[in-house]
């Protein structure tokens, strides 16, 4: 049995009238970054809390390395988790925050300094965590997750509040940890954050898993290329492109999207008809598009998705 695996089977959980989890089943395999994606309120955090034994499911179970979380001795040596970066005692220093965690797992204080080094907080080790930016708190949370050098790492929205430099660092760290053979479960409400690092994707909406697949398979499912263009006369452009055989949609007053025609063909057709245009771009399908396609079917969450995307 590999320690580096998360198996979630048939989780169901109700909070009062709301069915938060409605039969969630997926696996986060070893050596891969599993992207756990869904709009706010989809059930990502609840699922993670169930995996960590914090919330009890009404039905189903979650296992880490084959065991229920609550059966793990010194669990931080098996599973490292970042649940809420804001969860620090403001007046406690970063080092002391990690020190009590280390004590609880009978880990040496040396591990504390090692993980502070790992996340680039060594210089801020003796500063009070209350004064940390959200980005620094995320790093502290990662440090806590890595304290027990666990085969399984679970990160809930790790990119929140991180500056661009931090995001680059985080993406690199996630790749490294997966390359070491660990199973990583990384949640996000933004597909774009995980593009390029997630190997395996679990999309969740309204408490259900909408898709679970490898990244390539998922991209292949998406619709083909689209051409976007800007024009002051969208109605005229629509007519011209429609005649040329493109499936055209007017997005707003000055923008259209066209599929079924290559960018070159679009430019030619518009040029022949003397339609004024600017900014012709080709858009390849992204995880974001897949995500929208999957979640837009969930009518209630359509709006949430857009809000989520705008943050």
């Amino acid at each position: 049995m590999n320690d580096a695996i998360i198996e979630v089977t048939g989780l169901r959980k109700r909070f009062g009238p709301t069915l938060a989890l409605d039969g969630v089943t997926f696996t986060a395999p070893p050596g891969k970054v599993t992207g756990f994606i869904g709009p706010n309120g989809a059930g990502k955090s609840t699922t993670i809390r169930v995996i960590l034994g914090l919330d009890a499911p009404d039905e189903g179970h979650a296992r880490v390395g084959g065991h229920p979380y609550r059966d793990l001795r010194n669990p931080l040596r098996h599973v490292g988790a970042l649940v809420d970066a804001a969860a620090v005692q403001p007046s406690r220093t970063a080092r002391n925050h990690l020190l009590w965690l280390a004590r609880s797992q009978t880990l040496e204080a040396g591990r504390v300094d090692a993980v502070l080094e790992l996340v680039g907080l060594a210089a801020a080790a003796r500063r009070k965590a209350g004064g940390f930016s959200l980005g620094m708190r995320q790093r502290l949370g990662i440090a806590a997750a890595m304290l027990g050098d666990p085969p399984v790492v679970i990160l809930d929205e790790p990119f929140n509040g991180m500056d661009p430099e931090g995001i680059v660092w985080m993406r690199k760290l996630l790749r490294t940890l997966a390359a070491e053979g660990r199973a990583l479960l990384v949640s996000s409400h933004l597909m774009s954050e995980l593009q390029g690092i997630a190997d395996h994707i679990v999309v969740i909406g309204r408490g259900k898993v909408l898709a679970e697949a490898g990244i390539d398979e998922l991209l292949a499912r998406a619709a083909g290329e689209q051409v976007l263009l800007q024009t002051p006369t969208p109605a005229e452009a629509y007519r011209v492109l429609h005649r040329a055989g493109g499936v055209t949609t007017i997005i707003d007053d000055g923008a259209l999207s066209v599929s079924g025609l290559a960018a070159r063909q679009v430019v030619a057709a518009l040029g022949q008809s003397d339609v004024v245009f600017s900014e012709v771009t080709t858009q390849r399908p992204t995880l974001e598009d897949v995500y929208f396609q999957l979640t837009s079917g969930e009518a209630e969450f359509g709006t949430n998705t857009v809000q989520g995307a705008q943050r």
Partner: protein
Amino acid sequence: MTTTSTPPLLAGTPERARFTAVLRAEWTKFRTVRGWVIAPIMAAVLCVVFTFLVANGTHTDFCTGTGNCTAGHAFVPTGPKGQAVADSYYTLGGRLTGDGTITTQVTSLTGVISTAPTDVAPSQAQQTRPGVPAWAKAGILLRPSTRQGSAYAAVMVTGGHGDRFQYDYSHDDAGRPGPVSAGSPHWLRLTRTGDTLTGYDSTNGTTWTRTGTAHLTGLPATVYAGLFVTSPVSFQTSASGARTLATATFDHTVIDGSATPSAWHGQSIGAGEQDFYPTLRAGSYHRAGGSLVVSGSGDIAPAVVQGLLGADTASSSLPFGLTVALIVLIVVATMFVTAEYRRGLIRITFAAIPGRHRVLAAKAVVIGAVAFVIAAVAAATAVPLGEHILHANGAYVFPAGALTVVRIVAGAAALAAVTAVAVLAVGTITRKSAAAVAGGIVVFVLPSIIGSISSGGAVQWLYRLTPAAGLSVLQALPRSAQVDYPYTFANGYYPLAPWAGFGVLAAWAALVLGIAAVLLRRRDA
């Protein structure tokens, strides 16, 4: 994996982290928040400071019967074991050298009770009505000297407790029951053999029953022996008590031994203006035919002085400061758990230590130990300081004895520890700081504050049923079965024995701890 490797876990063997690891984690949490370390130290300082202020604000005036008041206090005799005692009576006797026996027959015991309370000067309290207090005493007394507080042994008839053999103020053996009357006289006999004193009683003067025996080590060859009569303050009609006087008739008094009966003389002991024990009159005797009629007022018994003297005790300055310290400790104990809920830190804790009851237990041990040490240090400093200040201000401080002081200090520490643990549980239940602090203060401190400022029967229940019962550990004044006294809170007595009161507090703590444990298991983190 980068550094450590984790030994694989066998399937189906749930294992838990060692409790010591959880304890170390919680201790590290506690000591790394500066406010949580400073606040308990402040609590100790505040406890000492407020105890000092209370003691320093206590001034005692001593008023004589003529209405002159001066700073200082009345004289309270100190018994052979350092305890405070009452030693006021009228006696008719003289020297007895070597072994000997005194025999007498008590044919009557009557008395009067003043209609005025004890806070009225004796000269104004001579209006009386008939009545004999249950612990009015008349009999034979033997002691090294009549110095107040010295050792003694006595055999006596009483107003309502039958015949008794008593010695050294706190030892009491019952003899034949029933009151004395002309139709039913009681014979009494006291025998000295070396250091051994034996009391007997009899219905006929020929058949004797041993009532009790005392060994007064170091008894000199020549001792004082004689008849005595005394009559204690009665609380039957007045909360502040009424002075009484008893009169006994002795017949057939025989001294068998090396003594000079003709040299017997009467004297009043401990009925002076400076003496603390309220007496109606100094007492007297006269001969009536072959009988000796002796009147006396006072008591020979443990001193129960709070109501009579307004006496302070080793712990009397402590409760206010201790309450202040408790409030500070309650805030810290609350924060120790509610801060984790407020910050979401509790999820990190329970992810690291899935055994939630172990977390609660470890937190309880940490906060309980902190509160215990803080309160122990505070009380161990504040109690002697308060006592010293009271002495310096001329107040009479009831002698507590080392064991009582140790119990008060340990009790205050245990009280703080259990309160802190209980409030920790309240915090675990409410998960909100304000609610837990308010709840903790209302349940664990407010009853004692109400109790300290109000009076009446309700207060007695407050100290029986609510967590305020825990304050019983501060009880410094002893009870005595030999003294009829209203042992009420107003007179300095908690209704429950120290450890019984502490048990009530502990039961409350166990209750909230149990609720917290159940909720912790049931609730999602």
